[in-house]
């Protein structure tokens, strides 16, 4: 046939010709009738199909069409096209069949559209309207099921359910929580949850969970709400707060973790009512986690700071902006005059925009005249920035999030991805369950992803270097290294080899507790993969050997040629939404934006010229050093922008005392944080919903914040605060908008050289992006490392600084949980998040609990050499014998009162992951 000679221009595959409603359509073979109709611009109604996740089950029968010569109607979403097929999508027979389906659905579906949350965006309502069905010709049969109100965020009214199975599909196959499924049969079929009818929420980490089998293991991601075509699943918090046509939708970027998900803020009357998925979001599509979708109610919390506060007679009292800024300006200038520029310091924020971080580092350097500027990246990934810079030449995730799902092997270490980077965890799960990847998990804790692992290496906390050396020992001994890559792309291999050869699997097994045979197996799996992605997070960095650990990841990846290619790489997952950007912007004591060293005279001259002032050449102090210097009286004035060191720093008693000793402490934030409580002046900042700007996610993607509402009260975006303060202090700093600041960033920062607002669009840009024509960079080090050749750095194993002993026999390791973020400033103000996870828990192994006679839920005391806290015990196999875990979100039981301020000598990151504690029964 002639038509078959027409080929697709790109693929050269012969096209198929079909006729739809007398219109001829050419389409690739293997396409469905629905695809062909879409191509022809003919709309076929569907109810069960989800184009967002490419799911076409063909079960709802709404999409049926008539195919000439075919005895019965076929489901167009699954039926493939054939050459010469003649299709009718709206013949009488088809329309009658669809009408019958609708009328059957409407026998049970409540006809209460006037009060239904879904009114205006309900697929069933739209179709009933289109077909003109007022009521079912089959009569009515009410189901009278009770409404399920058991989840804090999701309202389930199964009377409205049309059993399309979309929610079950996304919960089981994408989110893989498997909280819901189909149960019962025939007319009684319903979407069940857990062992019954209540969705509830996962309770495995709450107290007494074993006695409560009523709840499902729902993680409250709300994916089901996003895909429900009717009003069966709705956002509880938005109930009665507005109709779809009343909302203004503003696409923006989530401000929780480093994933960088996009979503729509739904605005009515100047208020954020809810968050909805937007399938245009490049990182996440329609996927979101519980915090992103439901955890933004803090924006309108009544205790938001709405005016500046000045400490008068020991109390913080409301003041005008002018009064506050004048006072700040005067006091900082006095201190500068009396004690010099280096007695001042600024703490920037990984929660603020790139523009704000850039301005604050400019402010510190140009106005204060000091390089004492740092931010919380010091506490999470400074080891990554330092370590990967030495090995590769630049410290960032080498590859992209979307590549993870295609990696044949994933080595995951020191990252509880499911809880800390939930959307990236979906990619890992997809890799394993859909694409057959092998997952190796190296983690002392039994994290959720262990369920997906081919191999789990449970090493003793703090023995990462030994484990990496052991893996490399096996790879070299068995000749599995990538000889060509080593020769062409790297240097100092011999030095590495010499050190690594000492670490036989047997020796490493003794150090780490991982069986030698498992080390061998893991090494073979990783080394023989076509490409392998190494993913890590703070379990690697937050050690006194953090930089060593990071350089070890680089050694392993280079040894096997897993850098500079697709679906591979060394991939540190960054914690805060903009911790990557805050580093990129030079909110660090040793570099300007784009990692240009302050000690490099050329760089210094460039910035000095642009900013019109002399700039200091001495490397400044890091976060912990700033507080230590404050403790000693050497730092007298600190400007803190949206950070909370009084909760986040190690050895809190010391850090809090240091903050109290500072002569003049200024904090800008959205709430009165533990740090703001001790400040001399507090300035009201704004949330991400109230400002424009950009943030850079963990895969180096620069994306937009779009302002959705006006600042609350007298609050101001931080970029304006910094500008106004600079001007008060006599330095000309003025911009009309964040876009203008970005122009300055681009002009001074080669890796951001081509990143300007008009270019960001829906997908943003991944740096390096040196010029306006550059499309951005999906993966780094393709033909050449940033530093030229990749450098192998041989590393000997060193123990953590504080090991358990007779007095403090247990190891404490700290981290986050899914439902909270960092110091809890915003998540603990979110109603639903607190309902699910309301108190600090100490995770302890059943063995240790038994020995100490501790039962689940009992309040216990955890003490280290630096402090003690009381919290409930959670007895769980997740903790290994001898190891207890606490999150650092809860001020009432602040884990950081216990942690040690032992610093990594290179990156100065504190050792949050290992310190010695004892656990005491109280009653």
């Amino acid at each position: 046939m002639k038509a078959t000679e027409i080929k697709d221009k790109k693929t050269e595959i012969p096209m198929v010709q079909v006729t739809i409603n007398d219109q001829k359509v050419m389409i690739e073979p293997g396409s469905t009738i629905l695809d062909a109709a879409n191509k022809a611009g003919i709309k076929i109604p569907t109810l069960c199909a989800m184009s967002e996740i490419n799911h076409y089950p063909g079960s709802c029968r709404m999409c049926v069409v008539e195919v000439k010569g075919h005895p019965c109607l076929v489901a167009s979403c699954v039926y493939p096209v054939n050459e010469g097929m003649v299709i009718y999508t709206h013949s009488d027979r088809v329309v009658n069949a669809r009408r019958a389906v609708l009328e059957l659905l409407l026998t049970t579906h409540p006809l209460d559209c006037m009060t239904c949350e879904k009114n205006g965006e309900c697929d069933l309502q739209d179709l009933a309207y289109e077909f003109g069905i007022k009521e079912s010709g089959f009569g009515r049969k009410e189901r009278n099921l009770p409404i399920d109100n058991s989840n804090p965020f999701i309202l389930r009214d199964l009377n409205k359910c049309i059993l399309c199975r979309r929610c079950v599909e996304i919960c089981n196959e994408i989110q893989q929580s498997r909280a819901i499924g189909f149960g019962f049969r025939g007319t009684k079929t319903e979407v069940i949850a857990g062992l019954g009818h209540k969705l509830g929420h996962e309770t495995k980490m709450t107290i007494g969970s074993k006695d409560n089998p009523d709840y499902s293991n729902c993680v409250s991601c709300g994916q089901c709400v996003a895909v429900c075509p009717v009003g069966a699943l709705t956002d509880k918090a938005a109930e009665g707060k507005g109709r779809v046509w009343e909302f203004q939708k503003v696409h923006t970027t989530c401000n929780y973790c480093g994933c960088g998900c996009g979503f729509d803020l739904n605005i009515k009357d100047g208020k954020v009512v809810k968050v909805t998925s937007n399938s245009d979001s490049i990182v996440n599509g329609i996927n979101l986690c519980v915090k992103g979708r439901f955890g933004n109610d803090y924006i309108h919390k009544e205790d938001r700071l709405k005016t500046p506060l000045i400490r008068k007679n020991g109390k913080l009292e409301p003041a005008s902006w002018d009064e506050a800024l004048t006072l700040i300006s005067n006091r900082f200038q006095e201190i500068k005059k009396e004690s010099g520029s280096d007695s001042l310091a600024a703490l920037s924020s990984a929660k603020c925009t790139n523009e704000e971080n850039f301005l604050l580092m400019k402010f510190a350097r140009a106005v204060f005249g000091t390089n004492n500027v740092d931010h919380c990246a010091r506490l999470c990934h400074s080891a990554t920035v330092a370590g990967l810079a030495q090995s590769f030449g630049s410290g960032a995730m080498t590859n992209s999030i979307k590549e993870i799902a295609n990696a044949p092997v994933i080595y995951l270490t020191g990252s509880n991805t499911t809880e800390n980077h939930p959307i990236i965890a979906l990619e890992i799960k997809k890799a394993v369950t859909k694409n057959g990847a092998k997952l190796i998990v190296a983690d002392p804790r039994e994290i959720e992803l262990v369920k997906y692992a081919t191999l789990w290496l449970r090493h003793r906390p703090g023995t990462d270097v030994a484990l990496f050396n052991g893996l490399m020992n096996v790879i070299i001994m068995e000749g599995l290294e990538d000889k060509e890559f080593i020769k062409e792309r790297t240097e100092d291999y011999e030095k590495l080899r010499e050190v690594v050869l000492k670490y036989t699997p047997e020796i490493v097994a003794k150090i780490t507790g991982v069986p030698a045979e498992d080390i061998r197996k893991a090494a073979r799996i990783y080394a023989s993969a076509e490409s392998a992605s190494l993913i890590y997070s703070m379990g690697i960095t937050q050690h006194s050997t953090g930089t060593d650990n990071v350089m070890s990841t680089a050694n392993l990846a280079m040894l096997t040629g897993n850098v500079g290619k697709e679906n591979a790489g060394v991939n540190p997952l960054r914690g805060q939404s903009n911790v990557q950007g805050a580093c990129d912007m030079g909110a660090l004591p040793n570099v300007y934006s784009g990692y240009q060293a302050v000690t490099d005279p050329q760089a210094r001259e460039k910035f000095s010229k642009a900013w019109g002032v002399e700039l200091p050449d001495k490397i400044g102090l890091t976060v912990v050093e700033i507080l230590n210097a404050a403790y000693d009286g050497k730092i007298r004035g600190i400007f803190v922008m949206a950070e909370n060191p009084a909760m986040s720093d190690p050895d809190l008693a010391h850090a809090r005392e240091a903050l109290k000793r500072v002569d003049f402490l200024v904090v800008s934030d959205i709430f009165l944080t533990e740090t703001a409580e001790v400040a001399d002046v507090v300035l009201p900042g704004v949330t991400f919903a109230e400002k424009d700007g950009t943030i850079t996610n963990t895969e180096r993607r620069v994306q937009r914040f779009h302002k959705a509402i006006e600042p609350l009260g007298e609050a101001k975006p931080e970029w304006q605060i910094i500008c106004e303060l600079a001007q008060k202090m006599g330095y000309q700093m003025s911009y009309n908008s964040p876009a203008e600041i970005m122009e300055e960033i681009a002009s001074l920062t080669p890796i951001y050289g081509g990143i300007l607002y008009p270019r960001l669009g829906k997908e943003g840009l991944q740096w390096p992006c040196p010029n306006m024509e550059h499309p951005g960079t999906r993966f780094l080090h393709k033909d050449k490392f940033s530093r030229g050749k990749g450098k192998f750095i041989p590393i000997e194993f060193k123990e953590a600084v504080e090991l358990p002993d007779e007095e403090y026999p247990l190891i404490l390791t700290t981290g986050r949980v899914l439902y909270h973020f960092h110091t809890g400033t915003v998540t603990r103000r979110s109603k639903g998040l607190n309902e699910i996870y309301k108190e600090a828990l100490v995770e302890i192994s059943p063995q240790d609990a038994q020995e100490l006679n501790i039962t689940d839920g009992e309040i216990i005391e955890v003490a280290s050499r630096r402090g003690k806290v009381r919290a409930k015990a959670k007895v769980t196999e997740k903790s290994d014998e001898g190891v207890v875990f606490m999150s650092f979100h809860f001020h009432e039981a602040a884990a950081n009162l216990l942690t040690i301020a032992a610093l990594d000598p290179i990156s100065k990151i504190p050792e949050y992951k290992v310190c010695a504690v004892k656990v005491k029964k109280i009653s």
Partner: protein
Amino acid sequence: MNETTVIKNEELTAEEKYQELGNFIRENREKRGYLIPVLYKAQSLFGYLPKEVQKFIADEMNISVSEVFGVVTFYSYFKTQPVGRHTITVCMGTACYVRGAKKILEALEDKLGIKIGETTEDLRFTLGEQRCFGSCGMAPVIMIDQDVHGRLTASKLDAILEKYK
């Protein structure tokens, strides 16, 4: 027919039953689609499938409880409530119905204090209904376990029930 084959395991303690079920799951873990045989085994051990047993199965098989519950509720063979030592099935077929099956059923419900689908507190009887056993000549009939009792009146029931302890 009594559709639930209750295998008596009164000699085993609950702990031993869980142990046996755990062993069965471990022996067959690698096989795909093994949930139904596991549920069958569990029901034969415990008599029915309470939530705790379903949760145990889900945990041991590394699958979700909703998957287990979905299968359990799909097949009428699987019981989520305890089943009595004896199952009474009242025929509600046409012949029995016109000859007073409804009255028989009401009398049974009254005497036992339970409704259809329920079990007496002492776990002696479970009450059920079916449509026609093919014994229309003896209508109205009931079955207790494998025995058919015909030409019934409510007054005969006490004597019949007495035989089943």
